[in-house]
């Protein structure tokens, strides 16, 4: 994240900046990252993780609210978090794309609000949404918007839980967008398939020109990868899903570019990426591990306390904290 020379020379006081932490709440656990800005840019001031007991959160649903609140309160108090930007699991969000007139932001938002009923099973008063505009115009004055919609009750429930811990939620963001925020350049015009591996599930997100265009989740997680003899393990489930998503994307008529690479993040991402690479698939052009600090700082100038392998698990929190 670049800051102007003025703010480098005259940084606003921390009390006024109200620096927030990225809080990634998933089925597996909680992770947080908070940056601190200095003259050279951002550095990591806080990072922590806490695993949930098995079954506490499933597909974004909190099964034991009391235990969840206790764990969340302890985590927030232990890490002294005040302002947090919280992730929303992909299963709880609806994603659709629509073409809108190229007008001002407010008009586009109203335009999308009218189209909510047609695209998601939620009425406008019961939904909270946000959208990203694809940089390239579709036809004439039309723009392609990628809209994420979340049930209002879900957000309000989380707000109440977080406020009860003493923290202050400043925003919510869906998981795919959070990952994109961490590593995709602002001027990117390529298309990537992000494979987000969790312990019990894996998310597949197509990111085109920095905008999340497609998401799907399968119930296969890193827990199924053995701890030893990894090279002998077959990841057919993942490869099949990658092929399906790839085929879907190539058959779409409105795409501007094909998927250029597969990006792997999340739990045991390094092993998974190596397994995907070893498959020698003809469809997949290449696979890679992202630099989740790309939009925060230059890894050649500042070496964080988090290792490269660990950083892949912190991708969501790293994106949220920006």
């Amino acid at each position: 994240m670049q800051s102007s020379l003025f703010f480098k020379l005259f940084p606003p006081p921390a009390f006024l900046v109200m620096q927030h932490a990225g809080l990634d709440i998933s089925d597996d656990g909680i992770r947080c990252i908070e940056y601190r800005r200095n003259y050279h840019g951002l550095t990591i001031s806080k990072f922590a993780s806490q695993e949930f007991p098995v079954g506490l959160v499933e597909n974004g649903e909190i099964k034991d609210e009391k235990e969840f609140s206790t764990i969340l309160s302890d985590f927030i108090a232990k890490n002294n978090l005040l302002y947090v930007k919280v992730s929303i699991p992909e299963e709880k969000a609806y994603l659709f794309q629509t073409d809108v007139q190229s007008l001002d932001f407010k008009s586009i938002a109203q335009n999308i609000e009218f189209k909510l009923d047609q695209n998601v099973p939620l009425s406008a008063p019961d939904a909270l949404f946000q959208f990203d505009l694809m940089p390239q115009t579709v036809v004439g004055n039309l723009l392609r918007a990628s809209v994420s919609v979340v049930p209002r009750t879900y957000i309000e429930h989380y707000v109440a839980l977080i406020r009860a811990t003493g923290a202050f939620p400043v925003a919510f963001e869906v998981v795919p967008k959070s990952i994109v925020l961490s590593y995709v350049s602002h001027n990117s015009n390529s298309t990537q398939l992000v494979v987000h591996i969790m312990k019990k599930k894996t998310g597949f997100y197509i990111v085109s020109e920095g905008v999340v265009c497609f998401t799907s989740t399968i119930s296969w997680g890193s827990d199924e990868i053995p701890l030893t003899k990894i090279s002998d393990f077959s990841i057919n489930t993942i490869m099949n899903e990658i092929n399906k998503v790839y085929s879907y994307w190539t058959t779409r008529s409105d795409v501007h570019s094909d998927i250029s690479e597969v990006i792997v993040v999340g739990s045991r991402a390094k092993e998974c990426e190596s397994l995907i690479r070893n498959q020698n698939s003809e469809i997949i052009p290449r696979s890679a591990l992202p630099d989740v600090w790309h939009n925060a700082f230059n890894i050649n100038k500042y070496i964080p306390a988090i290792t490269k392998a660990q950083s892949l698990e912190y991708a969501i929190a790293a994106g949220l904290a920006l």
Partner: protein
Amino acid sequence: MRHSFLPIQEQKIFKKEYLYHIAVVALFLLAATGLVGVCSLFPAYIYVYIEGSSINDTIVSSGKDKNISEILGIEKELRSDMLLINSLSESFSSIRYSDLIEQITSARGPISIDSIRFESISTSTATIFLSGTAPTRESLISFKTRLETLNKGNKVDLPISGLAKNKDISFSLKVIKSLQ
């Protein structure tokens, strides 16, 4: 901000919190500015205070000098006034020359007096020298007698040479006139 999945109510609370932070920072800056102002003006205040005290001391001391000089001036004036008053009172207490001359001329009769000279006038006596011309010896003796009788204690010295002629006698008298 509006499309950050945060409900409007929460956004309002967050904005209020942010405004509160701005107010705190603004007040802090105001206080800091005031403190810097006070700190920067403090040396000037000390300088002005010392200068003021110094000027006050100078004014007070010069006032004292002025009072002393005024007192001394008044004393001097009083002394000169005293001298004047004494002199005037002495003048008022001594006999007036015109009175003496009047007494002498009233007693002269046919004698013509050419000059009257006052010498050694004290508080009790006055020595007067008279010169003139008497038509006769008797008139001169008579004049001498009248002068002696003007006041008790008067003494008149008439030289005998003055009685050598009978008529148009030029004389010179010494009158010791009592002023009591």
